[in-house]
């Protein structure tokens, strides 16, 4: 228990003291157990008060401080820094919110607000009496990164991580680098050649002496945690054990492989997938030749293996519309007199890719729209495909197309071995079966395992530009974590009481971060929290049947004593000075405000009216009345009085 507590209660220039009797509270708190100093201050956050608190801590050897002012969201860091500057542990400070959650919320009831503030501050004093000295955890981290998968995403991240002075191990299971792009010909949107792009990237990798590339390498086992993972890799007969600080997973995707018979696939050699078609286009010169025959017309069927509202791939593969159109443009440019039919559902050439779609339409490509419920049917006669489709762009007219080739615009699916990668690295898999980030906006490249990141198409369909951006975002996060060689972690984490823990494993079960495992201790197994991976959510704590696990800063003592403090009875006397100066926010007259406000107020005097009724009464446009009335509502002159009888308009009245 603390014996030398300093309590600071803020006026906030009237924001608090207009309603809460801070002077009286200051005097009352001075009498509390353990409180050495209790002061009222005008602005707790001001420079001068901060200095005053620092001085108090140093001169009076305060062992903890309580600041009762605004919301902890605003100034927790300010006062933690005050503590640090004065040599006090920052966790021996508690913030009490008597503004947002007291004086402002109860500005209508000053006496009750004062009683509540009393309870809140008592709770803060109780809590700080149980506060502990906590030191942020420092873990030494290897400035070494393992990147799994050397497609464009992995390779590009390797370059930047190396340029930011990290040692990089680039681990590729195939015998060449570049992933799918290495196989691709002309790429949208820049018309560069896939192989050349990969070569360019490979040259940059070779320039970096701190990148080690392993090809034909398989990931065997992963252990350890952020700062110090151990990655076991098999290289032929050789086994390597790499010690790395962080892992970036860039294992990419697989092409969707249509089932036999899906739009005639595999039943005719004239039904092929887009990647195969692209190779053909790349390899043909002068004329487009398929199996010895020249090709003059092509039908592209979109969304094959995608957007199946009932099938297993409900998602859209994002880049295939553009890829197919880009191929069609390439064909048009390279070969003469080609006819192209695009059988699509929606053309998703989002952003600037729309220009490719426009170009294709200009080239005379024919677009035919179908819906999922009536997909095109590919009929085969002697291996020659005929397509029957209802065109939703022309009153569902039934069309029959005979084309030399049918190209199935296939999308992306997760890698077949992604389950094994996921289980080794403990990366969750989403409903689309791609790897899942923690949150698409807050933590888009982070996984629930600290230190393990995902980038590129293994997280979901992406084009090259997007794959590179996501992998580089991962690189930025990794570099930030490993930069100093030390990782500082918040000390607010779970901890186990070795005496009462019976290792039932319930806590480990609920922990999303795999932070809890068992360890032998004094002849029994007990739970152990990995300090590096615990996020401090406290979800484990309530699950323990023997109450053996708790969260620092949120211990039973702290929370229960707070509850006691909130309910402690106060002897509060009515405020001596009168409340006259409290009128400024409440009662306002309309003098000085726009004239129409007074007209509206007059119309509402003794009435509740809808906006059209007011407009009629004062002979003004309803839209103008809406604007002003809503502004009056916002500043507390009028308020809503419920719906009218037809329930299509709100009624308004003057706010007293």
């Amino acid at each position, binding site marked *: 228990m603390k014996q030398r507590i300093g309590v600071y209660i803020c006026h906030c220039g009237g924001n608090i003291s207009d309603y809460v009797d801070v002077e009286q509270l200051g005097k009352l708190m001075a009498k509390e157990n353990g409180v050495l100093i209790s002061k009222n201050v005008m602005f707790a956050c001001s420079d001068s008060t901060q200095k005053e608190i620092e001085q108090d801590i140093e001169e009076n050897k305060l062992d903890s401080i309580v600041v009762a002012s605004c*919301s*902890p*969201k605003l100034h927790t860091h300010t006062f933690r820094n005050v503590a640090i500057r004065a040599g006090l542990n920052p966790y021996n400070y508690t913030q009490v*919110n008597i*503004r*947002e*959650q*007291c*004086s*402002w*919320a*109860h*500005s*209508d*009831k000053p006496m*009750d*607000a004062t*009683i*509540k503030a009393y*309870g*809140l501050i008592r*709770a803060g004093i109780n809590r700080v009496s149980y506060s502990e000295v906590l030191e942020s955890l420092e873990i030494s981290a290897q400035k070494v990164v393992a990147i799994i998968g050397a497609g464009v995403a992995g390779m590009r991240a390797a370059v930047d991580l190396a340029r930011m002075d990290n040692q990089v191990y680039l681990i590729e299971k195939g015998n060449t680098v570049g992933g799918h792009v290495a196989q691709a010909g002309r790429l949208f949107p820049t018309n560069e050649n896939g192989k050349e792009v990969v070569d360019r990237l490979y040259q940059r990798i070779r320039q970096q002496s701190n990148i080690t590339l392993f090809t034909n390498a398989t990931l065997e086992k992963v252990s350890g945690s952020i700062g110090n993972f151990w990655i076991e890799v098999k290289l032929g007969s050789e086994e390597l054990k790499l010690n790395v600080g962080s892992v970036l997973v860039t294992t990419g995707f697989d092409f969707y492989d249509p089932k036999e018979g899906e739009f005639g696939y595999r039943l005719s050699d004239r039904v092929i997938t887009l990647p195969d078609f692209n190779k053909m286009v790349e390899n043909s010169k002068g004329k487009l030749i398929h199996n010895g025959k020249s090709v003059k017309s092509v039908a592209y069927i979109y969304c094959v293996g995608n957007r199946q509202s009932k099938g297993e791939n409900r998602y859209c593969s994002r880049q295939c519309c553009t890829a197919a159109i880009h191929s069609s443009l390439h064909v048009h440019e390279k070969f003469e007199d080609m006819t192209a039919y695009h059988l699509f559902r929606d053309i998703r050439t989002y952003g600037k890719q729309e220009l490719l779609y426009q170009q294709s339409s200009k080239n005379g490509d024919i677009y035919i729209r179908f819906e999922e419920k009536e997909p095109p049917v590919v009929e085969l006669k002697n291996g020659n495909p005929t397509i029957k489709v209802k065109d939703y762009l022309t009153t569902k007219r039934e069309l029959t197309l005979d084309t030399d080739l049918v190209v199935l615009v296939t999308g992306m699916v997760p890698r077949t071995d992604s389950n094994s990668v996921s289980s080794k690295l403990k990366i969750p898999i989403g409903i689309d079966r791609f790897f899942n980030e*923690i*949150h698409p906006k*807050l*933590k888009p490249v982070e996984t629930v395992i600290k230190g393990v990141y995902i980038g590129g198409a293994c997280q979901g369909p992406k084009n090259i530009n997007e794959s590179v951006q996501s992998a580089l975002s991962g690189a930025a996060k990794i570099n930030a974590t490993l930069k100093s060689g030390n990782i500082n972690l918040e000390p*607010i984490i779970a901890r186990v009481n070795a005496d009462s823990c019976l290792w039932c494993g319930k806590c480990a079960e*609920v922990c*999303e971060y795999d932070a809890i495992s068992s360890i032998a201790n004094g002849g029994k197994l007990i739970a152990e929290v990995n300090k590096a991976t615990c*996020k*401090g*959510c*406290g*979800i484990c*704590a*309530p699950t323990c049947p023997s*109450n053996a696990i708790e*969260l620092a800063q*949120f211990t*039973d003592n702290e*929370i*229960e004593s*707070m*509850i*006691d403090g*909130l*309910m402690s009875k106060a002897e509060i006397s009515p405020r001596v000075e009168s409340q006259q100066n409290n009128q400024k*926010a409440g009662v306002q007259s309309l003098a000085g405000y726009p004239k129409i406000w007074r007209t509206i107020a007059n119309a509402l005097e003794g009435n509740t009216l809808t906006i059209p009724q007011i407009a009629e009464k004062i002979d003004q446009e309803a839209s103008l009345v809406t604007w002003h009335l809503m502004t009056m509502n916002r500043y507390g002159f009028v308020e809503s009085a419920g719906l009218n009888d037809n329930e299509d308009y709100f009624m308004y009245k003057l706010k007293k």
Partner: protein
Amino acid sequence: MSTETFSPKILVFSTDKISDPGIDQAGLRKLHYSPSVYVISLPCSSGIKPRWIMRAFKQGFDGVFIAADGHECSYSPKCAEHTNTIIVESQKMMKENNINPKRIRMAALCSVCAEPFVSHMGNFSKILSELGSLETEVYKAQ
């Protein structure tokens, strides 16, 4: 105590990043709610121990309200499920102590849910007023 002057004491457990800022917004906009509402903020609503809830009832709170994050929780996608387990667990203990299970409630609140918070407090106060103070309830049951 007559129901008219009885203002039920409510302990709210909020979350540091999501629902507590929402409650702050209510104050900021001077949307008034009962001054017998007290808030304790934690990292995650799934970390509330039933014994804290029981402590609150023992100390004289008439109701406990959990302002959870719902699916915005940044710690666990199963947060709502976990918090619910805690409520079920607490309700068991409450029954054993003759406390009406209606005295605990949960709702998801976000960081700008000022109005919803105020209306939740109003509704909950109403329910608790109908139940009467906890002291009388426990007393009657004995």
